[in-house]
């Protein structure tokens, strides 16, 4: 095998880390090369799987994950144990699937790539234990097509695990069978929505499905299905291996969320990167101590805590703590926990134009508010960017923020699209107002009245 420098090499490979405090990343190599089976096992790999398969009842694994308080790491933060508990108790429904959402496409998210490229066996082990808990006989890793190295490394890890009796029939003599496949996608951000992902896996257009029924009852091919994010599944081995008490000791005392999180900072900071950090550290610590603050010549204008679908925050909000409730207190969501620094050279109107172009392009077109509302926002933002906006434009944008918000569309795509827009107008309204043409007629009674 030739030595290839993986794209995901970064500070997570370099900071001091230990098995006790960095369950996700302690096995990473300093040279960022993938950790294959031999090395993974030498670093205690598959010990948790052995424990889960030989010593624990399926219900015990579910209860352990429930008790740990593990929450989904894909952005929504739904409690994993609760999701697992939704799988039907009816034993006759014995064809069940575990899907790994590895369709990492949220703008400013580069965490699952690192886990899959460098620690493919951690995901395989996490899926093996989770499949056992969920009584799933088959799993699919839904991987975005552009993650070429992740596909190669995951497939090699699966082959290694099969050869070692860690996947396939009667795994480790437990009588449990589980087979795992990598399914690569063909583009489209919406595939990350879990029911759209199921449609895509079935070979259909990736339109989200109506819920209920939830995937736990009627999922892929009509069977009970659980969809979990890569990082979520990668937390499972350590929780099962080291126990709930240890897991609950990881986060900072002020955090209501437990464990560690892959957090990052990008933008024009001195040291952009990704680090495994305890929940409850302050955003300031992440920004200043880890990312090193802004590069010389740039000032922090605002920041986004966790992906395109989270709201903008001001520098004064950096004291917020990085956990769901901590970021919730300052008015938005933690999302993926990978933050973006926006510097003072960036126009908010242009940035939002870029973002809404993305959301409009990636709308699946299924429901009207999203399909028609997002291009409308792009049209307005382009006009404001050219200083050709009208007096009504900002009200129209705020109307769209409302009408595309949570509960008004078929899935969370449009609400995610308007959250940053609403916050950008809230904090930087004058920049939007500056886009109104100087010759524009004053606002009349709006033809579009925000509710």
């Amino acid at each position, binding site marked *: 095998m030739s030595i290839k420098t993986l794209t995901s090499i970064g500070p997570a490979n370099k900071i001091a880390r230990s098995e006790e405090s960095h369950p996700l990343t302690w096995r990473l190599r300093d040279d960022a090369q993938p950790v294959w089976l031999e090395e993974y096992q030498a670093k205690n790999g598959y010990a948790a799987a052995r424990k889960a398969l030989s010593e624990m009842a399926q219900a015990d694994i579910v209860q352990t994950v429930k008790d740990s308080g593990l929450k989904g790491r894909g952005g929504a933060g739904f409690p994993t144990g609760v999701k697992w508990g939704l799988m039907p108790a009816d034993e006759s429904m014995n064809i069940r699937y575990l899907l790994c959402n590895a369709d990492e496409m949220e703008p400013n998210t580069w965490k699952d790539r690192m886990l899959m490229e460098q620690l493919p066996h951690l995901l395989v082990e996490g899926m093996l234990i989770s499949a056992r808990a969920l009584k799933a006989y088959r799993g699919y890793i839904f991987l975005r097509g*552009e993650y070429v190295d992740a596909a190669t490394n995951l497939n090699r890890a699966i082959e290694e695990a099969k050869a070692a009796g860690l996947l396939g029939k009667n795994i480790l003599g437990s009588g449990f069978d589980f087979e795992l496949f990598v399914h690569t996608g063909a583009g489209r951000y919406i595939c990350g929505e879990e029911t759209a992902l199921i449609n895509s896996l079935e070979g259909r257009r990736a339109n989200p499905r109506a819920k209920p029924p939830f995937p736990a009852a009627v999922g892929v091919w009509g069977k009970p299905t659980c969809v979990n994010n890569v990082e979520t599944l990668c937390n499972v081995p350590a929780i099962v291996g080291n126990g709930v008490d240890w897991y609950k000791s990881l986060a900072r005392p002020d955090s209501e969320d437990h464990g560690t999180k892959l957090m990052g900072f*990008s933008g024009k900071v001195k040291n952009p990167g990704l680090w495994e950090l305890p929940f409850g550290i302050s955003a300031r610590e992440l920004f200043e101590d880890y990312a090193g603050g802004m590069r010389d010549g740039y000032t922090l204008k605002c920041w986004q805590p966790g992906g395109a679908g989270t709201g903008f925050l001001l520098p004064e909000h950096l004291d917020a703590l990085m956990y769901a409730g901590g970021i919730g207190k300052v008015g938005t969501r933690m999302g993926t926990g990978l933050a973006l620094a926006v510097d003072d050279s960036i126009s908010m109107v242009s940035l939002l134009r870029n973002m809404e172009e993305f959301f409009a392009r990636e709308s699946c077109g299924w429901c009207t508010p999203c399909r028609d509302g997002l291009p409308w926002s792009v049209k307005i933002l382009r006009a404001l960017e050219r200083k050709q906006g009208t007096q009504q434009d900002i009200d129209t944008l705020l109307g769209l923020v409302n009408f595309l918000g949570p509960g008004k569309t078929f899935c969370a795509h449009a609400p995610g699209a308007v959250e940053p827009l609403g916050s950008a107008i809230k904090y930087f309204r004058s920049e939007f107002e500056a886009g109104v043409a100087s010759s524009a007629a004053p606002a009349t009674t709006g033809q579009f009245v925000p509710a």
Partner: protein
Amino acid sequence: MTQTTNSNTLIQTDRFILSEAEHAAIEHEMHHYEDPRAASIEALKIVQKARGWVPDGAADAIGEILGIPASDIEGVATFYSQIFRQPVGRHIIRVCDSMTCYVGGHESVVAEMHKQLGIGLGETTSDSRFTLLPVCCLGNCDKAPALMIDDDTFGDVQPDGVAKLLEAYV
């Protein structure tokens, strides 16, 4: 034979036949799923890998193997952004246009590509060497701006590095 009359209209005169290798690869993929339909996206990728793009007749041929209507295959082919329904260049440049790469200055990289290659996003050079496309966040945000050329991912791309980057792809 494929004849181009204008940039958007293709008249495809030859009957489309899957090669034996394509046929075998699609059959192989079908067995990874409970239902043959699930292999439709993979089947399109198999055809695209062999030919660079997916000609019209492929929908019928794939539909026949999978036992589903050609219109369903076409519906899938036109939904996913990485399935190409018109010919593309020998090399695909995918420029990440996420907000992180915007902050990193990706628009100046796209402008430099336009200067060097004479094409904008969604276009193919007249010598069929490159097709330039936007792509969702490439998950390389600590090294923005990022782009891919074929299967290779690059980070920290700046306009003055574009010429050298393109050189390797003939």
